[in-house]
């Protein structure tokens, strides 16, 4: 049985409106979780929100009632510290009740600071140490090829995360095997934990690097829903290479005082900041 897009596909402007609404929902849920727990990584939650909304509400095929369906498209949150956004999109997509988001990082909660596939449906692999998602995604894509399945595999990495060599070992393998149903999305917010990527261990020219490893590369505005849907939704049968989407994003996107500010990597809001942010996130 092949899966259909969940929720039911809508077309044109409707779809973009749906994704926009879900992206806002992700940001509001994530920031509420971070505020209540006084823990988390809101800057990276916000830079990734539009990518996640596009994937789950406009691109991927999955059935939250059958989270291990063999034909499902796979998504791996390699930047596993951004569970605020990841758990929120999973709840909005129907994998578990939104009410469960309230337990984020509470004692014995299934919503651990980093995602655990044994705790919640919709998680393919446990992440948290950076540079683990792409190798696993390559394995999933090779398995799909071997068994003649047409599922797609998506992995979202941070940009600082790409300083880990494991990504490039996996990239080499993906290019070598011409894994055209594999898509890497780089959340290119140009900030890592302590500083800008380019003043820590620079990544540019990042597109050339991926190209040299055998990827087709698209550089887009990672907050532009139409562009995201277009590029991520394109039929991979038209490529004979894996795809790398460099999503140019803004860390903290959506809240004026958080945007492009490294202190919000793992900064948490006080009551005033929370109220201000929720006013802006409408």
């Amino acid at each position, binding site marked *: 049985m092949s899966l259909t897009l969940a929720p039911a596909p809508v077309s044109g402007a409707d779809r973009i409106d749906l994704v926009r609404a879900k992206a806002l929902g992700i940001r509001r849920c994530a920031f509420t979780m971070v505020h209540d727990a006084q823990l988390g990584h809101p800057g990276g939650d916000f830079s990734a929100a539009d990518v996640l909304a596009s994937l789950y509400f406009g691109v991927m095929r999955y059935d939250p009632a059958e989270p291990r369906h063999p034909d499902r498209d796979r998504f791996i949150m390699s930047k596993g510290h951004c569970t605020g956004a990841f758990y929120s999109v999973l709840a909005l997509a129907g994998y578990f009740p939104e009410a469960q988001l309230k337990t984020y990082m509470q*004692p014995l909660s*299934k919503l651990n*600071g*980093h995602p655990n596939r044994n705790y919640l449906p919709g998680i393919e692999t446990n*992440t948290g*140490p950076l540079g683990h998602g792409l190798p696993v995604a390559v394995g999933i894509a090779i398995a799909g090829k071997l068994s003649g399945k047409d599922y797609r595999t998506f992995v979202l990495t941070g940009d600082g995360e790409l300083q880990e060599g494991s990504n490039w070992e996996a990239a080499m393998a993906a290019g070598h095997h011409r894994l055209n149903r594999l898509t890497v999305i780089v959340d290119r917010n140009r900030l890592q934990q302590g*500083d800008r990527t380019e003043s*820590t261990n620079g990544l540019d020219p990042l597109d050339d690097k991926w190209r040299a490893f055998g990827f087709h590369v698209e550089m887009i505005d990672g907050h532009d829903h139409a562009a995201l849907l277009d590029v991520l939704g394109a039929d991979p049968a038209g490529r004979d290479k894996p795809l790398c989407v460099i999503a140019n994003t803004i860390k903290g996107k959506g809240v004026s005082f958080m945007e492009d500010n490294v202190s919000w990597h793992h900064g948490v809001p006080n009551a005033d900041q929370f109220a201000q942010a929720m006013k802006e996130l409408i």
Partner: protein
Amino acid sequence: MSAAPKIDAGLYDCRDTFARTMESLAEADERIVVVVNDSVGSSKLGGFKKRWPERTINVGIAEQNMVGVGAGLANGGKIPFVSCASCFLTGRALEQVKADVAYSNTNVKLCGQSPGIAYGELGPTHHSIEDLAWLRPLTNLLTIVPSDPEEMEAALRFAAAYEGPVFVRVSRYPVPAVPHTRVGVEPGKAEVLRAGDDVAILAHGVMLSRALAAADRLAAEGVSARVVNMAWMNPLDVGAVIDAAGTGAVVTVEEASVRGGLGGAVAETLALNRPVPMEMVGFPGFVPTGSVDFLFEHFGLTAAGISAAALKAISRKRQ
């Protein structure tokens, strides 16, 4: 970041001592450099970086490279202190630690930051409860687990002066000053902090002050507990362990897995030399979600949990 427990008066975050001591060492010896993985902030090395930007080598999020670069810096005559969250330093870069540092016997100082369950709610990927077991077979990697600021500073000063590989576990959980009976740290020497002959509690790091509190509780019940500071994991003070067995019952306490760390080292020593009933306090494996305080409580890494383990070990003594 995990919820940093509030630091009350009289409690210390050993990372502050780490930062201060590194600056003092660097002032005195220009060969000293730090190597980090986007961890300037979490290692509290912001001040160091400001003073010596060129002696702060940030390789980015790349721990295997970080340890290899450390070995290269040592080859070039520097004294590198490689400072990184202990989980990634010992887990991600374990082969570099083994081959480039231990087996090659290079003059690299590994500083495992926020070890044990210091990252609380961030979960087992960020916990470092396996580090002691992973490092223990690397026999020439001197390994110390300081319990408070005084011991932290002594360990770093020792590491800087010593020619060869050293691992220092830099705890983050706020600890009180421990009433040490010695000055400095001599490799392989345990420290008896409290005399006692019904049971011996062997502990280190964050757990040492809790072991002392457990001994107080036991004393109130008429039980005389010896408390021994086993700061050195490697070399292990075998004599102190065998002496501890003289009480007839031994308890180990560590902010680590009960498999292969201090408990494992002491169990091996007792089994080979002087078997007595023994209890291990530590973590059984991957832990559930929770804050540091919750997890300490949940798994009995508390004065109450340690004294209960001591009573259990005593109850198992042969009549």
